[in-house]
């Protein structure tokens, strides 16, 4: 019996070193590559015909495009147009990694905290840089809520600062933990199916079927949450609204 955590094991497929940096091609890298290829097939090959009346694949790609475009427009406004390619890439990358991870024997790249944290850190640093570049020191007013008595500010400003610096952690742990928990759960119940055998294995099997549907929803939802939170952080940095 395999451990439920074994599915998260990183396996080096090609050993590869850049000086002291370990750049080996792992199963994680393989599935990230597959995610990029799938995204390429959907968004470039699928839309190549540029039909005025789209086919199924083109309609799907356009739906994804307009979904993220609407998200950026509604949450950031016109100033967010510049960052739309990044948000779309983020959404599509996470979505494909999550969904592909549901294929049996595949690997979920987003179930690793390093990966999610790296993305969250890029978002956090990028948003902070954008904020300072647009507003200079005035960006710090983000930490000072308006119309609050001075005494309360003594309490609120540290809270605001802490909540700001917690962002990359909450963003990365949310995605990583969702993937980790879902896949572990599936694996544990898969183990039950084997253990209970032909007599009692049907119940956990039925559960797995239903739970896989839920996981599919979560795969989409977490990509959406990551993208929309990125939009909200961008909005904070650009408009300083609170």
């Amino acid at each position: 019996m395999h451990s439920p955590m074994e599915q998260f094991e990183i396996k080096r497929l090609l050993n590869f070193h850049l000086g002291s940096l370990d750049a080996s091609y792992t199963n994680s890298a393989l599935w990230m590559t597959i995610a990029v290829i799938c995204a390429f097939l959907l968004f470039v090959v699928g839309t190549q015909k540029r039909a005025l009346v789209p086919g199924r694949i083109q309609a799907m790609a356009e739906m994804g495009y307009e979904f993220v475009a609407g998200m950026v427009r509604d949450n950031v406004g016109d100033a967010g147009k510049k960052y739309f390619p990044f948000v779309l890439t983020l959404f599509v990358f996470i979505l494909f990694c999550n969904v592909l991870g549901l294929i049996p024997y595949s690997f979920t790249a987003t179930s690793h905290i390093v990966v999610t944290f790296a993305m969250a850190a890029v978002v956090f640093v990028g948003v902070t840089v954008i904020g300072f570049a647009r507003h200079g020191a005035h960006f710090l007013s983000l930490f000072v809520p308006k119309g609050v008595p001075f005494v309360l500010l003594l309490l609120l400003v540290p809270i605001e600062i802490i909540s700001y610096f917690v962002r990359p952690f909450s963003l990365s742990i949310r995605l990583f933990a969702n993937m980790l928990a879902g896949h572990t759960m599936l694996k544990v119940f898969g183990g039950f199916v084997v253990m209970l055998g032909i007599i009692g294995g049907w119940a956990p099997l039925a559960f797995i079927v239903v739970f896989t549907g839920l996981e599919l929803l979560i795969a989409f939802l977490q990509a959406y949450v990551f993208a929309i939170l990125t939009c909200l952080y961008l909005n904070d940095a650009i408009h300083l609204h609170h």
Partner: protein
Amino acid sequence: MRKQVYSALAAALVAGASGTAVAAEGGMPQLNPHDFAPQIVWLVITFVVLYLIMSKLAIPAISDTLEKRQGKIQSDLDAAEKASEDTRALVAAYEKRLADAREEARKLHREQAEADSAAAAARLAELGDKLNARIDEAEKRIAGQRQTVLEGIEDMAHDIAADVYGKLAGQPADAGALKAKVAAVKGGR
């Protein structure tokens, strides 16, 4: 049978728990710092590649298609709007022509009626003239005839008087005196 199921379930739970324990022993694979570098390296590579694919290929293509579609829809809508305006103009022109034609017909009808009545009046007048002429002519003829008759009567009276005088006197009367006498009798009336 039920017992079997329970025991299997219990075994599964134990196995699951021990499996977790085994994993905990080795630590979560996610927390192995040895694996961090290759993941980040390939995350950066694949993410940048995807970003380039999206920003250079996918987004221009899709936004171009969407714009074209929007343009097509807009131009179709404009064309439909124009066509409906044209139709409205055509209908208006048609109705104007219809009204004009009706007006024309009414005018023609009126003119025709006027012309007809004028012609009838003219014919009537002509007929009246003709009739009057004939009446005049008839009257003239009647007057002529009367004159002739009257002259005939005078001649007859002359003849009768000469006859009577001849028979009474036994000799022919003097024509000049007789004529004067007849004229005197006629004038005396």
